[in-house]
């Protein structure tokens, strides 16, 4: 779907700019722990902040120290160079230490670069535990955010509006889940890159537009003849990644297809529906915090391992590629545990550490991925592809 590809490849995609042209506000947010339904219920476009199209690091490096993940640095780079001046608000969540410090670095950069701090600038304090008082704290954080949004944008976010937003979001979630099942089929009808583009688009497009486009895409996919069985069925998981190029690197010219993922921009954040009955704030809290899908929820490794194993079984995964951005210790350490436990089950794994943004280390990654796919070939007994003839072509 062209609209998904465009939304995945450009921050200021057409649909976002169309929304802006209506004069309605746009609020950016940094982390999958923010219930976007709150903003949508206020007729505000929630826009997950991304840092693709970064073309330098001078601003990012001026505020962040050297031992920091390149994602918040790239974000700050875009912020400082005015790429996000079109947003009316920003919500920073302590998804990790790098991202939580974007709060200060963004504000301090605002002292040097005029007009880059939006009128609504908010710190959303998501806790690291989902039980008891942790969940209570998160509920209060949501309630406070609702009040702050109402106050700043002069809107009303009633329970009815929140409920309607949940219903709208769930509509697309169910469709994503259906396509995710199609992606796991033995016979391939879509690539991993196609699926990923859709999930990223879901964090940018107005939700009703996204739902409508998802419905159209599903109809196309259902009519589409299968493309055959992939040579290698890959699962991709790990830290922040909104880069289609990484999928393309795995899939192009290799016979491998990413049939499952567990990425914070992927279906991990978009799959399960929010409960539609009962108090909408509590339902949102349970959904966003209770899922424990990310290693920032400490002590839930076994839960996440079970989730990964379930996906591996469902999508008949041959091998798992784990990636993390350098300095992301949360995913780096958890990937090592995954590798230990999955390899013990006979599931081949590859761990990659990389930088966020333009794929400057494409050659290195390609080499390692190719070597991994060769390992899968050997294990499966499949004949090795003729690389010389491929190179000649």
């Amino acid at each position: 779907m062209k609209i998904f590809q465009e939304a995945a490849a450009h921050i200021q995609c057409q649909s976002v700019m169309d929304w802006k042209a209506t004069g309605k506000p746009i609020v950016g947010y940094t982390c999958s722990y923010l219930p976007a339904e709150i903003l949508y219920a206020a007729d505000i476009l929630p826009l997950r902040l991304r840092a693709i199209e970064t073309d330098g690091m001078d601003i990012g490096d001026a505020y962040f120290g050297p031992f920091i993940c390149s994602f918040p640095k790239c974000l700050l780079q875009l912020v400082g160079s005015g790429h996000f001046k079109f947003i009316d608000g920003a919500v920073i969540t302590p998804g990790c230490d790098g991202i939580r410090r974007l709060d200060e670095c963004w504000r301090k950069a605002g002292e040097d670069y005029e007009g880059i701090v939006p009128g609504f600038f908010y710190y959303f304090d998501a806790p690291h535990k989902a039980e008891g008082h942790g969940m209570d704290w998160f509920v209060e954080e949501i309630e406070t955010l609702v009040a702050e949004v109402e106050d700043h944008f002069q809107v009303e976010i009633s329970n009815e509006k929140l409920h309607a937003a949940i219903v709208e979001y769930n509509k697309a979630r169910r469709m994503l889940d259906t396509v995710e099942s199609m992606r796991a089929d033995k016979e391939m009808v879509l690539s991993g890159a196609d699926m990923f583009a859709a999930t990223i688009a879901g964090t940018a497009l107005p939700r009703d537009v996204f739902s409508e486009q998802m419905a159209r895409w599903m109809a196309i996919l259902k009519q589409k003849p299968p493309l055959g069985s992939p040579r290698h069925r890959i699962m991709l998981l790990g830290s922040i990644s909104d880069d289609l190029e990484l999928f393309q690197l795995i899939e192009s010219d290799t016979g491998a297809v990413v049939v499952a993922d567990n990425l914070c921009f992927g279906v991990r954040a978009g799959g399960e529906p929010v409960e539609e009955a009962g108090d909408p704030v509590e339902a949102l809290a349970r959904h966003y915090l209770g899922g424990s899908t990310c290693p920032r929820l400490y002590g839930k490794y076994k839960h996440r391992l079970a989730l990964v194993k379930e996906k591996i079984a469902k999508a008949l995964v041959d091998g798992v590629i784990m990636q993390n951005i350098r300095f992301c210790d949360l995913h780096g350490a958890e990937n090592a545990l995954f590798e230990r436990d999955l390899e013990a089950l006979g599931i081949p794994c590859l761990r990659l550490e990389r930088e966020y943004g333009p794929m400057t280390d494409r050659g290195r990654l390609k080499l390692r991925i190719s070597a991994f796919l060769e390992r899968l070939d050997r294990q499966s007994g499949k004949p090795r592809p003729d690389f010389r003839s491929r190179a000649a072509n």
Partner: protein
Amino acid sequence: MRSAIKAYNYDWMMGSLLEAAAKLPAGTAKETALAFNHIPYFKAPLEALIETGPPGIHFLNLLSKYYKNIVNARNDGKKIAATTFCSSPVIFYAMDIVPLTFEVLTAIGAMVWKRGMFDYMDYGCEVGMPETSCSSQRGALGAYLAGLGASIDFVVCDTPGVCDTNANAFVFAAEYLDKPFFQLNYPSTLGDDRSQAYHVKDYQALIAFLENQIGKTLDYNKLEAHLQEVEVQDAITADLEDMLMLVPTPIPPIYTLMIYSGRFCFAGHPEYTRLLELLRETAQKRMAEGIPGLKAGVENLRVLMCYIDHYTVDMNFYNYLEMRGIATTGSILTRNFRDDNKYCGPLEGSCYGMDTSSPEAMLDTMAQMNARLPMVRSIRGPYDQHGMWLEECLALARLYQADCIIYNGTPGCRNTWGMVKPFARDIEKQGIPVHIMNDDAFDDRVESWEATRERLDEFFTVRGLL
């Protein structure tokens, strides 16, 4: 890991070494001098501690006991909790649990052992910890991951919400070793009713976890005894803090290390009270005689270490301060944020009070005390938020009359490296020079001590401080 490193358990080896070291001053001066010939790599830190007299010797005994407690825990019928320097050991002692603090064990190994903790740090990476993780945990943790230490029974983590890399090391330890895990989690604010209540609920959950692990309930009478000891310790610490404010201060640089290391190991224990008494006695004597704490007898400069000190081989950092005539007014680790300290005045809501009148009061005291420990107090929320790191450092620099502020940490500290540049800029705006050290406090391979020293000298020279 090389087989030679695997020949001895880390904790037994260090405990034995420190035990022998503590006995050394009991011999004659000639015997001590002869012994030094046989320990060229341990000589400098040992000399530095022995030179301080009774406090240094008591400190060596204290550290030796800390290791022995770990090594003997199984025989003593006690369980071992792997924990962090941000967690008060008082609750563990009150429940007959032996605390094993990775950062303390890493710092000691880094200072007194020829190779530092490099082999253990690297072992951590061998089994999956990222090389970008914090060296302060990875050093000693590497030994325990390799099975070169006493068996850990459970893990208590105390930094979620404040420091990812710290918390992550404990999560990794629990999963890798397959041990029960508990986390204390901190909101981004401090001093307000909501966060205070959160601390209490979290601490209640910790006690329930510990009770479950040891199979018995917390004896509040025992906790009260330990808290009363803390009360005495806090009063002595406040005296020492007052003396740190004097110009020149009668407190030698190495005293600050002893103040906080002792607290991390034995808060609430009479052994630590004795150490503090010895430190106070000697400092008061110097103060009465008008003698500065620095060996040279002249205080050329006063620095505030806004984060941590430097702990690599030979106690180079403390020796450097002595050589240059630089007094340290402490680091983030030195202060305990007890409400009767003078520095708590401008930091309203940042400090804790002591109340042992009932179990509920003691629970509240423990929870609030724990929430004021290093790092989890100062660096939890945005650094420029009320009561947080910036306000704290500015207040301390003024009160302690520091000439400059120095940041030193580890590359693993994402929490501070995420904002230390704007933080330093904000301090500079107030007219206080700031130096950011780009080394690793526990690993000289990141930047050699010689390079670190050159950069410090350059800073002091360029800024006209020395």
